[in-house]
């Protein structure tokens, strides 16, 4: 099993270090998840105080990224990890970058929420934002779950849903353009809504990246810039090969 594979070291300190890094990444993920959840909520409900709170908390995410980065460098320098351990460290270094970016986008949501609260509200379009926001939240959550469980199938499932988020983003974009053409007075508000949707769409991309790192970490296969169908074909053959060699 993959889990057993990551915890087979006789050096128990080393083992604890690796486990600690994984836990730290997921802890950072938990904070980012809450930031995202609060950011979306602040925008949708027009809660400027919550928005400011989100913007204020972003420094914690950054601090966690720096600390995990240092831990990874320390392990690379002192333990010279190989094979699956090395893949774990590499995947962690990449994952925290994406998590930090998600944190930045959430901070943006917070700022926008504080601004949007001052302008006249349009109930209809914020519901769209809530929908795409929930969707993206599920993606981030699913990506982190896949990371925790080292579950490549779940990772691919999440990566596949990114396409839906992109479609939703395009729909919101078209809608905003229509509104702006009909009534130029709504341009400012529509632009803000677009900004939020854009931030959420970016977060979806980052979640997809994390899923790709999970696949890389577990199977040692780089699946970036490939279409999902190709990836699935490759992974199926990889899995068949690995079970064949084990059994």
């Amino acid at each position, binding site marked *: 099993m993959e889990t057993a594979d990551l915890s087979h070291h006789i050096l128990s300190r080393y083992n604890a270090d690796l486990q600690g890094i*994984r836990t730290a990444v*997921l*802890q950072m993920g938990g904070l980012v*998840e809450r930031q995202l959840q609060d950011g979306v909520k602040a925008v949708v409900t027009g809660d400027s105080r919550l928005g400011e709170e989100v913007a204020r908390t972003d420094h914690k995410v950054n601090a966690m990224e720096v600390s995990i980065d240092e831990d990874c460098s320390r392990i690379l320098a002192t333990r010279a990890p190989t094979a699956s351990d090395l893949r774990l460290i590499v995947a962690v270094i990449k994952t925290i970058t994406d998590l930090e970016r998600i944190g930045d986008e959430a901070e943006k949501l917070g700022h926008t929420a504080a601004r949007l609260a001052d302008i006249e509200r349009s109930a209809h379009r914020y519901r769209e934002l809530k929908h795409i926001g929930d969707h993206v939240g599920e993606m981030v959550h699913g990506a982190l*779950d896949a990371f925790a469980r080292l*579950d490549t199938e779940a990772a691919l499932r999440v990566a596949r849903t990114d396409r839906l988020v992109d479609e939703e983003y395009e729909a919101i974009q078209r809608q905003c353009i229509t509104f702006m053409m009909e009534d130029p007075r709504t341009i400012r508000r529509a632009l803000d809504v677009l900004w939020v949707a854009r931030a959420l769409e970016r977060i979806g991309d980052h979640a997809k990246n994390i899923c790709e790192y999970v696949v890389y970490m577990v199977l040692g296969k780089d699946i970036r810039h490939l279409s999902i169908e190709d990836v699935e074909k490759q992974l199926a053959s990889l899995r068949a090969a690995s079970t064949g060699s084990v059994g």
Partner: protein
Amino acid sequence: MSKPAWRYVVGIVLALTLALAFGWLVGHAAIALAAMASLLLAAQVRNLLRFDHWLHHRKMAPPPDMMGLWAEIVGVTSRLYRRKVFHKRRVVELLRELRRMTSAMPDGAILLGPDREIIWFNRAAASWLQLRRKVDYGIRIDNLVRHPDFIEYVEKGGRGTAPRVHLPQHSDRWLAFNLVTSAAGSGMRLLIVRDVTNEARLESMRKDFVANASHELRSPLTVVSGYLDSLADDAQLDAAWREPVAEMRRQSDRMRGIVQDLLELSKMESSDGEAEREPVDVAGMLALLRREVLARPSRPAIVELKLDSDAMLLGAESELHSIFANLVSNAVKYTPVDGRIDVHWWTDADGGHVEVRDSGIGIAAEHIPRLTERFYRVDAGRSRKQGGSGLGLSIVKHALQRHGGWLGIDSQEGKGSSFTVHFPAVRIRARLMERAARPAS
């Protein structure tokens, strides 16, 4: 040795002696003895083999029918075996029942190992936290439930307030967690998950109601007391009306006080989390309060202030002011004119402390635990006459909670009371600048 064992030994000795005697008579003693010994050995080996066979096929074969000591051994063995089977079946049954019960439990339950790894969980926990049976066994719970408040709670080992969180899996649901550690230190812990959505909704409805009601009451009250004020000052007012108007004015002032306190309380309740940390000069605030008390027409004869610290307290100024003002005004209310009030402010390693001690009427021990409840009155008639809202100590308690502090009450009926507020050390900041400057000047 038991009786069958004795009989067994005696039997063998007897058989051998008889064989010896017979052999001696015939003239072949050695051969007779050897023949008898072989016979006995053969019988023993046969019994031993039968016993061994039965031990291996206990479940199907009935116990072998044997004589003497062998019958005893078989009997004891089969009794022990039956007892073991019975106990095992009972334990298995109990365990199965227990698992069935915990599965059907409305609360979620998760059994955690020493490293917080998941060992077992029930159905409710699985559906709320989206755990997957078998797959998630061995994964640390804080890797799957990643809410920062939850992680903080688990890292503290379950001490501190149990968190109530919205999980991303169920953003419309409030879940409360409780970590239970058994007294015997196996390192295993039980995590209980409860759905508290309804409680949270009721609580927020209550808070909203109080806040809205007091807000709505305030404006009509302002109008009423405004007219009463101008009526009371009206020189042409009929003398017969003078006293009723004055009374109405007093009562409307009291009502305004209550509404004011209710609003303050609900404001504190709705702004959850910690109070801000602006430096507040406690010594200066207490000195000001003393001057206000001294300016009152009827007051205790002695109001002493003892300031043993010039440290700053980090907190919200308005809330700290209402803590101290409520304590001091309570002391003034319940202390006779010839009594005394002592206010003491000091800091030590534990943090900062303010004690308000009076020589007033005191409080009976049974009332003390309930003093901070809203509208709780030791003596309804008396305190209403004193014009309190009945919310003072509730406000003190809430404001203290927001500052991480607590209230200590010590009182003896007839002798006086002492109310002490304690603030944690993290909220105390020494005035380094001034202290450094003082010796120089």
